[in-house]
């Protein structure tokens, strides 16, 4: 097996940057916190740019444990983007809140690397380790506000339950290993394909435990309960990071795992995924209706989103390779759209929080008066979540569901659409606060920091761009999804 160490240059950059930043603060304690943030942003930028060199490159594996193909590249760029934005979001926020920020930014970058390797892994050990890297960074970041009891509480809940669930995951993996004797996805697929039926019990248990484990990572009901607390307790930019990275990474892992390894025997898990999807979206949206805290509301709404995304996974199980390809292209597109909308939303919320220290729904009263632009960004991203046209959510959701529709799954898609309709209600409740009511006394028009303003505006434009001209991103998504289903009409990918 050849070893091409150049494959990981982007991660070298990221990790190296992380170490450098941590060290930098160590040796230069008086450094202004923003610098760390901007530095991180720069590193992330370099990382993303470096990642772009692998676009449309032939898939290359490193000893068969990780592979760098369009799928990996897709998530590399995505991860770099997330880190970039979150770092910029954090600049002022963290300056006001903590004494040392170097580790914070370092962990952002490392978490991003974890995301990349989860996407790249073609083998369980690597996948697991990468998963833990990301989770560890998140545990720490969630609890990063050391003096804030809520932050620590969230972090504790997250890590305890996280460990619990990864134990489940591991046990499941061990079962599959026991049956197939390997941890490589392709070998597992082969092993699953030509096994005797009296290993069913072990396979079922294994797959269910794995499902539970990854379900926890992406916060699918009933494994979702940590999410709202973690989101609410975490520092606001980290809430953004959490709700984007953990979802993206989780689905990166799930996609490659289920599409390559477990797809050999979909009958065992497809119904379960469908059930989880239905449960997740319903629970998420119903619970979101009751929320008064913004972060918490977003948490539940993101749970709802996870429900939608799981529909695509279920479709991989239900449909043939073609459907799988369509569904996962749609899923990737939707993830991208979702990530951008979420980041836009949190950029605005962070900017508002920096001014007023409010993070409740009612706290947004009259934002349209005091800061129209923030209000606009928020509305755009919320409508994008709700799947209203002009905004990313509409197109991405429509494509994802359209790709996932098979005769068996139409009911689930219908339920998903119904749920996104329910979700519109609580999004409108936020809009209502901002637009229908005047601000409280003394709250006058204010300016937002240029950085946040620019980032937010840019993201908002991105949301609108995806919503109105999704073609390039959609093609990228399809190219990214193709390696998972090579053989499934791969020629589509070459088409202009």
């Amino acid at each position, binding site marked *: 097996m050849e070893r091409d160490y150049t494959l990981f240059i982007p991660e070298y950059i990221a990790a190296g940057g992380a170490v450098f930043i941590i060290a930098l603060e160590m040796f230069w304690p008086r450094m202004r916190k923003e610098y760390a943030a901007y530095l991180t942003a720069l590193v992330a930028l370099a990382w993303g740019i470096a990642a772009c060199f692998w676009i449309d490159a032939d898939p290359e594996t490193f000893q068969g444990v990780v592979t760098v193909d369009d799928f990996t590249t897709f998530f590399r760029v995505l991860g770099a983007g997330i880190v970039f934005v979150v770092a910029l979001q954090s600049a002022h926020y963290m300056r006001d809140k903590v004494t040392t920020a170097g580790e914070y930014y370092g962990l952002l970058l490392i978490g991003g690397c974890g995301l990349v390797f989860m996407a790249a892994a073609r083998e369980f050990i690597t996948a697991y380790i990468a998963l833990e890297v990301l989770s560890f960074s998140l545990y720490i970041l969630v609890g990063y506000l050391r003096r804030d009891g809520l932050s620590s509480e969230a972090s504790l809940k997250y890590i305890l339950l996280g460990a619990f669930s990864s134990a489940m995951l591991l046990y499941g993996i061990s079962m599959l290993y026991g049956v197939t004797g390997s941890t490589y996805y392709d070998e597992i697929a082969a092993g699953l394909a030509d096994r005797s039926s009296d290993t069913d019990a072990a396979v079922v248990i294994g797959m269910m435990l794995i499902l539970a484990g990854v379900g926890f990572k992406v916060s699918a009901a009933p494994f979702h309960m940590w999410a709202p607390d973690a989101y609410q307790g975490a520092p606001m930019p980290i809430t953004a990071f959490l709700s984007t990275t953990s979802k993206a990474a989780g689905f990166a892992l799930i996609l490659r795992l289920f599409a390559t390894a477990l797809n050999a025997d979909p009958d065992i898990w497809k119904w379960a995924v469908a059930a989880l999807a239905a449960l997740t979206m319903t629970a998420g949206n119903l619970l979101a209706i009751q929320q008064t805290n913004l972060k918490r509301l977003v948490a539940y709404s993101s749970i709802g989103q996870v429900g939608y995304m799981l529909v695509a996974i279920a479709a991989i199980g239900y449909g043939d390779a073609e459907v799988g390809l369509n569904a996962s292209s749609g899923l990737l597109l939707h993830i991208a759209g979702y990530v951008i909308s979420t980041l836009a939303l949190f950029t605005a919320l962070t900017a508002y929080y920096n001014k007023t220290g409010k993070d409740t729904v009612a706290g947004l009263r009259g934002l349209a008066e005091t800061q129209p632009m923030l209000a606009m960004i928020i509305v755009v991203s919320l409508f994008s979540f709700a799947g209203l046209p002009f905004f990313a959510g509409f197109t991405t959701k429509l494509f994802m569901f359209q790709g996932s529709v098979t005769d068996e799954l139409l009911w689930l*898609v219908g339920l998903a659409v119904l749920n996104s309709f329910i979700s519109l209600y609580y999004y*409108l409740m936020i809009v*209502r606060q901002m637009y229908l009511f005047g601000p409280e006394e003394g709250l006058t028009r204010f300016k937002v920091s240029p950085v946040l303003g620019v980032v937010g505006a840019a993201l908002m434009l991105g949301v609108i761009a995806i919503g109105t001209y999704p073609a390039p991103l959609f093609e990228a998504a399809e190219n990214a999804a193709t390696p998972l289903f090579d053989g499934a009409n791969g020629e589509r990918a070459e088409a202009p």
Partner: protein
Amino acid sequence: MTYDEGQGYIVLATLLAPLVAMVLLVFVPGERKQWARYVSLFFAAIMLGLSTYIFVAYQTGPDQGAIQMEFTRDWVENTAFLGENGIQLYLGVDGISATMALLTGIVAFAGTLASWKLDYRTKDFFILFWMLVGGVYGTFFSLDLFFFFFFYELAVVPLYLLIGVWGSTRKEYGAMKLTLMLVGGSVLMWIGIFAVFNEAGLGTFSLPELWAAGEDGTLSPTFQKTFFPFMVVGCGVLAALWPFHTWSPDGHMSAPTAVSMVHAGVLMKLGAFGIIRLGIQLMPEGAEFWMPALMVLGVTGALYGATAALTQRDFKLISGYSSVSHMGYVLMGLATLTTIGVTGAVLQMFSHGVMTALVFLMIGAIYDQAHTRDIKDFGGIGKVMPLWVIFYTIAGLANVGLPGLSGFTAEFHIFVGTFQTYPVFGALAIVAAALAAAYMLRMFSVVFFGPLNPQWSGLKDVTPLEATSALLLIASMVLMGVWWSLFTDRLDLTITSLPGVTG
């Protein structure tokens, strides 16, 4: 560039005009209210002109195709489930959408004039207003299922803010209910669209191809029978299909004048239009199967709305319920599946559009001064606002179906068509028309006539701007009322070529 391409660009321009206006307004400083108004007026005029051009330039005659002035640009194709021409920006006009485009131009222009007095966050208002109008135009022009739905939803998006921010009575409730019910309707459409695309398996959203699939049985009859209700109820909510109409009274009661005008005038027509596009044209078999049910609902709505309007006391509630009644006629006309009936339905869409726009314009004109809409508070207004009374009376008479005004032209066709297929329902519909006379005249005699209630001696008559838009609307009413063939010629070919439509 050939003639037809040129025409295509005209259509594109018409669609883009409101969106451009929207974008421009974003950059107008908020405190420059007058600028916002003039920009809007400018674009409204452009739209009116272009729409009129489209309507006039739409070729009639046997050698013409139903769909004209096509404009096509690839949007997304050959990606994932999308094959050749997967999604195109495919615009085009047939007789129906030409008529609807004209309606939109007129009402949007009138609405702009009507909201001239609006002084609270004018700029934002017009931004959302043009978003709404853009959505409407897009829906009428789109010949691609994706964009059809895209614009259909787009038209609903701004309503919440438009009503919630600039509305009146119980605006939060009205706005929320209206938005949710409309989006709830489109949920069904989503599902229907997914199912259709999946069943057709053509890898394209292009409506003509899907229509062909619907006709040649690629969409199996059972499938059509199953999913026709999704499409029709989905659109029907917007068309105030009984019993999904309750947003109409509350929504109209809360909405500001211009929004009521555009909403009742044009947006409700989107629903009926959708029933034609996604119901009759896409699933002829389903239409065949379900139309009796739709007919029953339509009749119910027509009678129900008229009856409920009899004892309402709020101007806007009366108009809201009468809208339910009139959209009931539209649904009946469609449900006949006869050339005459469907023609009548389209005519009624136009007629009700201008008529109800005028009504809401007048209501706004008096509400701005009196700040009440309870008809019992008024009396003898004719003394102080003669012009207002005259305009309102004309609108009312059109509402009642007085020959010479658009209402009669439309309702007559609908009645005839209904009698062809379901005589009893036809008779009921005519009875509903008589009820319309009852509630309209009741309101007239209470509000306009009788001794003047001295409390209102200070009321001013309609402003020149309102008068202008009112005259514009009245002109179009009379036009349709007198010169039938102007409209019927344009509809003839289109409607006779609808699948499953007989006679």
